[in-house]
């Protein structure tokens, strides 16, 4: 009898010890994802999925904190010392700057993940009010008098730089097109811009919530989100004849993850974007997935667009940044507040 009691007590003790040991063993970690402006909904959903996946795999509880803003501004914050474990920005140039100015990542960061570290793509479309009262059909219409255009500031917003280059690339492809004509054309568009927000989400607010402007040059995902959130009876999406392939890249910030000991989880976080689950979350949030199977599943959601790349038309981001968006570049020449 006593032996049985002792055996039961020992078994109970073993259970209690194992439970408490596992409780003690459960670690937790936080990550900071510094992202560009319109990815809030994407990463809200993605972070929940990744946290569940990671805890199932490692028993470690991971909390991902998000920071959102214009891609250029976010990159500057990381350069100035913001300890991001990962950045998921709008364009490769902004991440290159983190290497150039702060050496917080290696020079070959873009080769570390598939498809130049861009797990999803997007493009630039035109969002107009229901009924398309100004009859917007293509880029040409944006430069006409009486058309009010909403687009963010390319000095701070990555999306705005894609917008600008998409318009410029369109102009180059027109009959008789050349750099001078493209400059005049883009200048005519910016002459119609009444408000320059610092980021893409700010411009969405301006157009959608404040009711300003006739046409919004928008990330495709923002346009689809606006239609979904506010209904097809409020807005329409106009697919331009040609647009630019936007490849928002991601990377781990090496100096931060090594200091914080979060390299493994940060790497896994970005790699999860390439999994089927991650790609589906991207697609559900209107980012074009890379995985062929998922792309096929969501094909109807994404209209066919004639796309060019920044390498094809502008010779890459470094050249485009220097020519158009650096201080004294083309944008500064065509847009000066007050004129």
């Amino acid at each position, binding site marked *: 009898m006593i032996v049985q009691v002792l055996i039961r007590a020992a078994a109970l003790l073993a259970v209690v010890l194992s439970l408490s040991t596992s409780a003690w063993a459960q670690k937790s970690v936080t990550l900071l994802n510094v992202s560009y402006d319109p990815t809030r909904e994407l990463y809200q959903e993605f972070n929940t999925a990744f946290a569940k996946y990671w805890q199932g795999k490692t028993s470690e509880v991971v909390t991902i904190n998000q920071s959102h803003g214009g891609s250029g501004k976010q990159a500057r914050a990381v350069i100035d010392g913001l300890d991001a474990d990962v950045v998921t920005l709008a364009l490769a140039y902004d991440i290159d700057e983190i290497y150039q100015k702060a050496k917080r990542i290696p020079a070959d960061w873009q080769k570390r993940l598939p498809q130049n570290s861009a797990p999803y793509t997007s493009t630039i479309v035109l969002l107009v009010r229901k009924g398309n009262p100004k009859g917007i059909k293509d880029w040409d219409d944006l430069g006409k008098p009486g058309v009010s255009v909403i687009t963010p500031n390319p000095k701070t917003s990555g999306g705005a730089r894609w917008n600008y280059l998409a318009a410029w690339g369109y102009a180059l492809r027109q009959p008789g097109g050349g750099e001078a004509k493209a400059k005049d054309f883009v200048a005519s568009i910016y002459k119609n811009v009444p408000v320059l927000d*610092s980021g893409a989400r700010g411009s969405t607010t*301006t157009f959608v919530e*404040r009711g*300003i402007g006739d046409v919004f040059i928008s990330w495709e995902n923002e346009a689809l989100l606006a239609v979904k959130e506010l209904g097809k009876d409020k807005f329409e999406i106009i697919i331009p004849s040609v647009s630019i392939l936007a490849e928002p890249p991601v990377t781990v910030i090496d100096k931060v993850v090594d200091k914080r000991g979060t390299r493994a989880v940060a790497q896994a976080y970005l790699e999860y974007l390439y999994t089927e689950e991650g790609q589906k979350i991207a697609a559900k949030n209107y980012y074009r997935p890379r995985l062929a199977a998922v792309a096929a599943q969501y094909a109807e959601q994404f209209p066919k667009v004639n796309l060019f790349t920044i390498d094809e038309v502008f010779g890459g981001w470094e050249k485009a940044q220097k020519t158009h968006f650096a201080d004294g570049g083309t944008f500064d020449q065509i847009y000066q507040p007050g004129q």
Partner: protein
Amino acid sequence: MRPSRLLALVTAVTSLGVGMPRVVMAEGKTLRRALAEKRALENKVEILDRKVRELEQRVEQSLGTTGEVRNAVVPGPRTEQVEALDQKVRVLERRWELDQEQAAAKAKEAPTFTAGKDGFSLKAADDSFRLRIGGYVQADGRFFADDKERATTDTFLLRRVRPILEGTVGKYFDFRIMTDFGGGTAVVQDAYLDAHPWSWARLRVGKYKPPVGLERLQSGAELLFVERGLPTNLVPNRDVGVQIHGELAGGAATYAFGAFNGVADGASGDLDNSDSKEFAGRLFAHPFKHTSIEVLQGLGIGLAGTYGDQRGSTSATALPTFRSQGQAAFFSYRSDGTAAGTTIANGSHSRFAPQGYYYYGPFGLLGEYVKSYQHVQRGTTAATLENDAWQIAASYVLTGENASYRSVSPAQPFDLAKGTWGAFEVAARYGELDVDKVAFPIFADPTKAARIAESWGLGLNWYLNRNVKFQLNYEQTDFTGGGPKGERPKERAILSRFQVAF
């Protein structure tokens, strides 16, 4: 005007403007009402137009733009005009909104400049960089009663003229630079860097007060009396070295341990004259600080000490001169410039200094004792001398403010218009300094150096505000020995000070 109301306005204007002829043809009564409504709407459009122009002006002034916003030519029928005005209002409101957001973001990052009772300071938004410019000036009067033998001189003087530059760089590193131009000389009193990654462990390097004397550690601007008491003669003034220090138990205790060049009692130094160093340490506690025993929360007790080796030479003896409250030298060692006739420090030098204070409401009490052991030599004769000093000082703030180790802050600063006079405090103290008998006559001349000084003093402090103070003291000191005919004459000093500190 809200967009929805404007939309309604557009609809009304459109229907009235377009439909009026039909209304005229249809019903007479309705026509009068329609006309009145039309006139009302037109008035509203004109008011809206005026508001838009005013808003344009405000935004232009804020954004510094000229002309861009003020494009009042809005051609077209009323409907288009209203829609265009509506858009203009929205654009202006949005620009205003973005402007406010940018201003708020800039304000968060912008440094702040303040000027007030604590001086002038500039601070970064995240507090990681800070600069404070402060200082204090003391204009003293020093008068001696019954000074028939003219042992001392009545004088006005600038006792201290101390500009202070202090601040923080990179969040964890404080610095302080304080010079003194009092008495027509220029001396770097403090110049140090203090690294403080944690409150319990800080590292200080440079020139500053070693952690020894209680009254010496008080700022020169926060003294209860015009001059510090006799025990301060036996503790180091400023020295160059390195120390670790910090707060423990939520500030209830502090510690400091350091290594310094070593200086004579009461003296300051910038360079060492030997390889040996002096170690200093202090522990000070407020044992009842975090208890509910309110009457004892202001009790502070501590112990400090030094241990080192002091060696002098004929030209630089490394030995002290002791001064009275009137700042007259009443003791010094023999020194005639010859090896045989000059007493020098020549060996171990240590100090032992228990200390404490008590403050409760307007009442304050401060006391300290210092014993200094110094090995000395003159010619072939050597000895270890034990000199000691102590004092006890009491104070009471007549106007009811709290007495404090860090001076009194008047509740109602001096203001003639309001009839307020600041704070008044009375103080009294007694102290003694005893030189070891063994010092006489070999190491010190008994006809020139007094063996004992016994001093008592009364003080009145008038704190006009946190930055301006007036002090008046009477200090009387009796000496044993030190005179050519026996006793050094009694010193009766009347000391005054007018101080501005910020």
